[in-house]
């Protein structure tokens, strides 16, 4: 039987259809995700853009949607962002340095520490809220204040910062450390003068990304007392709200105008997060060294 031209063409039309259907399903999977993202963004922007104005930024919330603004919430979110960076960076980098440079991997307690951090990264955010409620708000009587919210968000975000900082520290080549030790530097001198400066871009990127995630969290703040109706500007030890909480409060109201307000506030929140993420990525692209 001689081979004829065209005998290489697939003679299994069913196979071809299966292939096409399968491919269609795969494409649909991706399209589903992106289409939803698109619909979400379009919905938010179309509904809310008209109300992103000075009123939103400068007025406190009110029962009348036409004069309500989100100033306390926006300020609180910015305030929380600053506190988050202030708290998480030293704690997270300190833990990462300890695990990477000082801890003996063979010891059981150090391995437990690593497992512990992995577990904490996967705990639902509302559990952190419960932690805050029990210990900070009621336990030591700190009350429903901004500081408590900042502390709880710090704990929530900390495992992510630790993991990012460890990656950055690990990426610094060992030859740099050896060269520094060989000159007579002590361990801390090597870490502080060589390892950390080299790891800084990675640490900065990771911390900013983690903070951005923390600022989008609502559930822990609800439990720690972010009140849903706050009309004064936030202070460290005063009652507070935050942008995600304000959005939640407005979404829960039945009136149509509050939905619109919520959409406007969402635009602001997304704007803040986008700025943070873009900054982090810019830092990574500009400063990160490829060893």
């Amino acid at each position, binding site marked *: 039987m001689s081979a004829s031209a065209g005998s290489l063409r697939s003679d299994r039309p069913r196979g071809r259809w299966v292939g096409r259907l399968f491919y269609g399903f795969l494409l649909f999977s991706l399209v589903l995700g992106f289409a939803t993202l698109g619909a979400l963004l379009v919905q938010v922007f179309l509904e809310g853009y008209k109300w992103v104005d000075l009123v939103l930024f400068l007025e406190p919330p009110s029962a009348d949607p036409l004069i309500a603004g989100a100033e306390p919430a926006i300020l609180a979110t910015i305030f929380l962002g600053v506190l988050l960076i202030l708290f998480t960076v030293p704690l997270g980098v300190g833990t990462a340095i300890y695990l990477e440079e000082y801890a003996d991997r063979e010891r059981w307690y150090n391995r437990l520490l690593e497992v512990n951090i992995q577990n904490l990264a996967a705990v639902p955010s509302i559990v952190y809220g419960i932690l805050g409620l029990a210990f900070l708000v009621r336990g030591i009587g700190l009350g429903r204040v901004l500081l408590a919210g900042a502390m709880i968000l710090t704990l929530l975000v900390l495992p992510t910062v630790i993991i990012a900082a460890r990656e950055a520290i690990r990426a610094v080549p060992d*030859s740099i450390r050896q060269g*520094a*030790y*060989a000159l007579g530097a002590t361990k801390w001198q090597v870490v502080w003068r060589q390892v950390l400066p080299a790891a800084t871009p990675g640490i900065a990127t990771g911390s900013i990304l983690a903070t951005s995630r923390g600022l989008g969290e609502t559930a822990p703040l609800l439990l720690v007392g972010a009140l849903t109706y706050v009309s004064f500007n936030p202070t460290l030890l005063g009652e507070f709200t935050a942008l995600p909480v304000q959005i939640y409060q407005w979404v829960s109201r039945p009136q149509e105008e509050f939905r619109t307000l919520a959409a406007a506030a969402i635009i602001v929140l997304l704007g803040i997060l986008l700025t943070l993420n873009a900054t982090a990525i810019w830092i990574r692209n500009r400063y990160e060294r490829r060893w």
Partner: protein
Amino acid sequence: MSATMAAVSVDLTARARELPAKEFREVVFHVEDLGVSYNGNAALQDVSLEIYRNFVTAFIGPSGCGKSTFIRCFNHLNGLIPGAVVEGKILYHGEDLYGPHVDPVEVRKRIGMVFQKPNPFPKSIYDNVAFGPRVLGMTDRLDDRVERALEQAALWDEVKDRLKASALSLSGGQQQRLCIARCLAVEPEVILMDEPASALDPIATTRIEDLMHELKRDYTIIVVTHNMQQAARVADMTAFFSITRGEEGQRTGILVEYDATSKIFTQPSDKRTEDYVTGRFG
């Protein structure tokens, strides 16, 4: 003997006359029954020899014979590797480097190291050389120290106008000379070099070898090299290491022969040495 070895040996016998007689040599290190094991596996054992001041001493041998492990014993760099255990003694000016209370930082102030692959810090040229003095508290007249170190490393003329430039912008050979300058800036007594030229091109290699000749006037140099011709060119004394196999087949490094370079390459006492230097194996 091959033609190359003949040429080298003429050069060697000329230089052999330059080596001071044994009674005039000064001992810097006295190594006694040194052994190193990693997690129970012996990498090196029963090494005994003396290192003399202002000599260039080369460690040669096939790969895996423990010469890099050995050189790292002199500046306690093995201590950075978990599971590394050093037995035996290294007396440095009569004091045991591995005695109790010996601080590795103090050891490394006096015994510096240059690595196989140049490892400049990701900082400026100036900051690279200044790093050692800064961490050791030698910050007086820092600019002078940096200049002097760079001059001794034969790099000053090439970089004096761009001290603030990143060290990573230098060529491989320049980076290695920078690492040497960095080492010199803390004013050590001994310089350890672990295959300092193996990552460099031949011209850069020659410059490093010339540098070793000049530096030995003021410093004591120990160099590990896998390049026999290099050892023949630069070293006054040469130690040849090889590998023995244990009963279960483990490979351990041992010192086979240690003598003036001219003798190692022209009239080795041990057959294993002769096999190695004539290229029959290794």
